[in-house]
């Protein structure tokens, strides 16, 4: 698997898209750091971009890459290679190259800014870790959908709908439920609901780091108590990890059975 990974990875890391993607983050982060003196403001602005863009780009590029290299996959399948290794190697190479783009694009300007000695280092790390998680999660989901659908358009459509669901529609449903049932205690419900959506979970983890908890009254108290405890952090990180593992398990299963 490592060989396949390395092969794909060296191809991907030199691709125009990866370089463009890295440059975009580099420019954005440098610009924000130059424009705003307040580092937590920069983190909030970056958060808005990351929560919006990382899932979209990861799923789009993931699916594109799968269909673009389909001929090569068929070639590989003809070789005496383990099937799982081929697909997992491909998945890890695409998500790792995107992850490195993100890491470099956001990391380098902050390093020069001196984040390591800043008190905001922990907030920044939260942002980085959740960004990387989102990247791996949505690449996995996109890859799974691509494997499932022979039809390229259908795979694209369903990925976009899925992204739209997590980024926008899910919050709408939550808001509706919250306003319908506002006479009931809803803290546990909101907590559970936010654990189920990786984008929401990432957003809340970052915002709670940035003290928004104080705005939230009782709900905020419940949230910051949960996310502030080691148990809560473990739960939310494993919830994010599950979002990677479950699609990966499905990819594994499908790759064993799929006819090409």
């Amino acid at each position: 698997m490592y060989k396949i990974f390395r092969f794909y990875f060296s191809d991907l890391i030199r691709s125009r898209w990866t370089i463009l993607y890295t440059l975009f983050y580099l420019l954005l982060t440098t610009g924000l750091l130059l424009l705003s003196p307040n580092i937590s403001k920069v983190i909030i602005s970056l958060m808005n971009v990351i929560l919006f863009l990382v899932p979209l780009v990861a799923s789009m590029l993931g699916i594109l890459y799968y269909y673009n290299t389909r001929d090569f996959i068929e070639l590989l399948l003809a070789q005496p290679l383990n099937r799982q290794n081929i697909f997992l190697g491909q998945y890890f190479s695409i998500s790792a190259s995107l992850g490195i783009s993100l890491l470099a694009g956001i990391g380098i300007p902050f390093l020069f800014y001196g984040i390591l000695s800043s008190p905001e280092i922990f907030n920044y790390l939260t942002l980085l870790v959740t960004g990387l998680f989102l990247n791996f999660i949505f690449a996995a989901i996109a890859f799974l959908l691509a494997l499932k659908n022979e039809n390229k358009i259908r795979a694209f459509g369903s990925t976009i709908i899925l992204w739209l669901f997590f980024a926008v529609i899910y919050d709408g449903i939550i808001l509706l439920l919250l306003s319908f049932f506002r006479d009931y205690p809803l803290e546990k419900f909101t907590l559970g609901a936010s654990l189920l959506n990786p984008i929401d979970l990432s957003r809340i983890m970052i915002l709670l780091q940035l003290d928004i908890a104080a705005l939230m009254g009782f709900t905020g108290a419940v949230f910051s108590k949960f996310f502030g405890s080691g148990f809560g952090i473990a739960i939310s990180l494993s919830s994010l990890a599950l979002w990677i593992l479950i699609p990966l398990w499905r990819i594994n299963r499908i790759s064993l059975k799929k006819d090409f």
Partner: protein
Amino acid sequence: MRVFTFLFLIFLLAFAERNPAYAATIVVEPNSSQHPIQLAINQANAGDTILIKKGTYFVANILVHKRVTIRGINNPVIDGNGETEIFTVSSDGVIIEGLHIQNTGISYLEDRAGIRLKQNSHCIIRNNKLVNTFFGIYLEKSTDATIENNLITGNAIEENASGNAIHCWYSKRLSIRHNQTIKHRDGIYFEFVDNSNIAENESKDNLRYGLHFMFSNDNNYFQNSFSNNGAGVAVMFSKCINMWENRFYSNWGRASYGLLLKEITDTDISNNLFRENTIGIYVEGSSRIDYHHNEFVRNGWAIKMSGGCLDNHVLLNNFSGNSFSLSALASSTNSNTFSHNFWSDYNGYDLDKDNIGDIPHRPMKLFDQVVQKTPEALVLLRSLFIDLLNFSERVSPIFTPENICDFHPWITPVQNAVEL
């Protein structure tokens, strides 16, 4: 001739020493007797000065019942041993300065103070350091007192086992200037105090309020700074209070605000800075208040108005980077106005270049209203869905109240007297 003048002067000096109409000076040294300071006061005549030399004095309650000046040289330490109130001043015109007063201990039966002014007038307390006193300076029916340049530090842990740094009750015409009040229950507490000035004080890290006003009318407070207090500053049940050039910042917590106005009328709030408070100003049942030239920077809510607020006029303020600019109950009958403010989230245009936006700004977004009704919805803050919701509401307002609207929003920040 010269010899005569000299003799005359000596005679004058000697005469002055004996005549009670002239001030004498009594010097107190540590360990000179059992209660050297009380003894000196008992021996002194009105108008005398008692100089306390450097050292540590363990004292019982000292009663100041004569018009004397008590002055410390190089900050002598007056220690109450954790058992007693230290100075109880009942005479008019007493001056206490340059002392380091400490350890009254906590009592649940009496309000022990570092210095208590009791039914007197024209006293001056200045340049003292009060450390670990239950109440710092306690004014009880005292008029025309001056409290100046004191540093009052407590170590309050619990609200019900701690006192206030400067506590004023039934007093008039006080001047409280340039004090630092740290880690008490309330920094400065006013109850039934009229016609007083509070200026240039710094109040921080107090458990409850930096400044607490109750039933106190016609007071001014200006150029103070209030930070990191449990719940900020509370001004309640009072009228004609002027608040100018104060700084309220970092009052951050679930039940915290920069400034709480409750049942306040006829007040002018101008040139203040509100920075990083959960709620900048929380207004409840207050009427005829002018807010102008204030800076609201990075607060959770800049202004939150609950019901029963009439004739609040918000004019020429800067609102920048607040999570919510305004939260107010919509009612067609209230007469609160918003005009000529700068809102950092305004996205209109100014075609005629008169620095006033051409389309009105609605400081209350749809999400603000949703949060008002369903507080839990705050978890959706900064989500894409909420941005879309606010955007669509802004394009065609349906739900947001008609009368909460700035028809003349400023395009660039208003020039204010406060620096950030």
